[in-house]
C-alpha cells in the first residue's frame, strides 16, 4: 500500500502519484469540462510494490448510466499510460455527495453554463422548498425551476427571468 507512508523517494509512491494524476484527469463522460477529480468521484489510487494499481471510484446518482463507463475510462487511461495491471473498484460508502465537487469543479461547471449545486443545501428535506439558484449566464438570482429532472440524472432544468435563457442546474445530492 504505497501511499500510506509518505516517502517521496519510494518508487511505488512516485508511481501512485503518477497513477492518481492520470485517473484524476479523466473527464466526466457527460460533462467533459470537469474531471473525475473535480467531481470527487475518484476516491483513491494505490500502486503496490509489484506495480499493480487499484483505483477506487464512487457512483454518483444511483440511476447514473455513466457509472460503468467511468470505470472503463479510468481503466483505459491507466493502461494507456503504461500501467498494465489495473483494477477499478466501486466503493459505495461513504455515499457521494455534491459537496465533494471541488471549488475548481464548481467554477468549470458555471463557465460551461451549468449552475453548480447550492452547497450544503437542505432544501431537498423540505417537501416544497425551492432552492435559490443563480443564473450561470448573467448571475441573476431571479430564476425559476422548470423541471426537477433534466437531460441526465444529475441535472434539473431552470430558466432565468432576467436574461430569459434556460439553463441546467447540477442538483444537490
Amino acid at each position, binding site marked *: 500500500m504505497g501511499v500510506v507512508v509518505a516517502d517521496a523517494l519510494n518508487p511505488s509512491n512516485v508511481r501512485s502519484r503518477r497513477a492518481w494524476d492520470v485517473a484524476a484527469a479523466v473527464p466526466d463522460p457527460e460533462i467533459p469540462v470537469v474531471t473525475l477529480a473535480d467531481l470527487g468521484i475518484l476516491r483513491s489510487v494505490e500502486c503496490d510494490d509489484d506495480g499493480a494499481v487499484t483505483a477506487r471510484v464512487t*457512483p454518483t*446518482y444511483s440511476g447514473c448510466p455513466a457509472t460503468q463507463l467511468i470505470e472503463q475510462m479510468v481503466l483505459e487511461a491507466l493502461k494507456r499510460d503504461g500501467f498494465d495491471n489495473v483494477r477499478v473498484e466501486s466503493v459505495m460508502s461513504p455515499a457521494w455527495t455534491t459537496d465533494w465537487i471541488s471549488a475548481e469543479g464548481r467554477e468549470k461547471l458555471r463557465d460551461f453554463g451549468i449552475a453548480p449545486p447550492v452547497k450544503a443545501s437542505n432544501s431537498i428535506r423540505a417537501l416544497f422548498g425551492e432552492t435559490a439558484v443563480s443564473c450561470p449566464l448573467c448571475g441573476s438570482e431571479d430564476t425559476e425551476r422548470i*423541471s426537477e*429532472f433534466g437531460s441526465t440524472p444529475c441535472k434539473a432544468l431552470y430558466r432565468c427571468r432576467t436574461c430569459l435563457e434556460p439553463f441546467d442546474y447540477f442538483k444537490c445530492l
Partner: protein
Amino acid sequence: MSDDLFRYVLRLADDHLILGQRLGEWCGKAPSLEEDLALANIGLDCLGQARALYAYAGKIEGKGRDEDDLAFLRPEREYCNALLVEQPNRDFAWAIARQFYFSAYMLPFWRAMAKSTDDDLRAIAAKAEKEVAYHLRHSAEWVIRLGDGTEESRRRMIEALEELFIYTGELFEMDAVAHAMVSEGVGVDASALRDEWRRTVDGVLAEAHLTAPEAAYDQSGGREGRHTEHLGHLLSELQYMQRAYPGLEW
C-alpha cells in the same frame, strides 16, 4: 441470519426493479417532454437502487447469482415486491398516486436504514434517501396540480388515490423476516413509519383539497410471492430477452 438478510434485501430490490420497469413504460409517451424525462429519471434511480441491492443480495446468497440472474431469471412466485409497485399505469394519475404513496414511505424508510448496522445497506440508503426526496416532491406536486386542477384531472386523481390505497397497508407489514432484521439492527421497523407516512399523505391531499382515502381492507401477499395478475404481464416483457435468448449479453 444470512437467509433472512438475503430475503430482506431481495424484497427491497424487487420493489425497485418492478417500479422502475413501470416508470420506464412511460418513456416516449408521457403527457409532456418534461414528464417523459422526469419519469424516466425516477425509473433510472429505482433501477440503480435495485442493481446495488441485487448485487448485494447475490453476495449474501453466495451461490454465484449476480444482479442479472436475480432480476431476469426468477419465476413470478419468487418475486417478493409489494403489490403497490406492480399496479399498472392506467393513466398518468395512477403513476403519480403509486409514486406518491411509495415515495412517502421510502423516504422515512431509507432515513432509518441509513442508521443500519449493515455497511452495504447503510451506504445504499444514504444515497437513496436523497434521491427519494426528489421523487416525493415531484409526485406530491402533481397530486396537488391534478387534484386541485380541472374537474377531469381531479376525478382521475381521486380515482387513482382511492383504487391504489388498498395496497398501501402492505408496506407497513412486519413478518418474521422483517422482525429478525430489526432485532439484528439491520432492518427498519416499517410499522413505525405509518404515522409519518399518513401525515405526509394527509398534508399533501389537504393542499390539493382532497380527503385522504380510508381502506376497507388491505390487500397483501406480495412479500410471499402472491401477486396480482399484473406482475406476470410485466415480467413477460421484462424477461423477454433473457427467456428468448438465454445468456444474451451486449
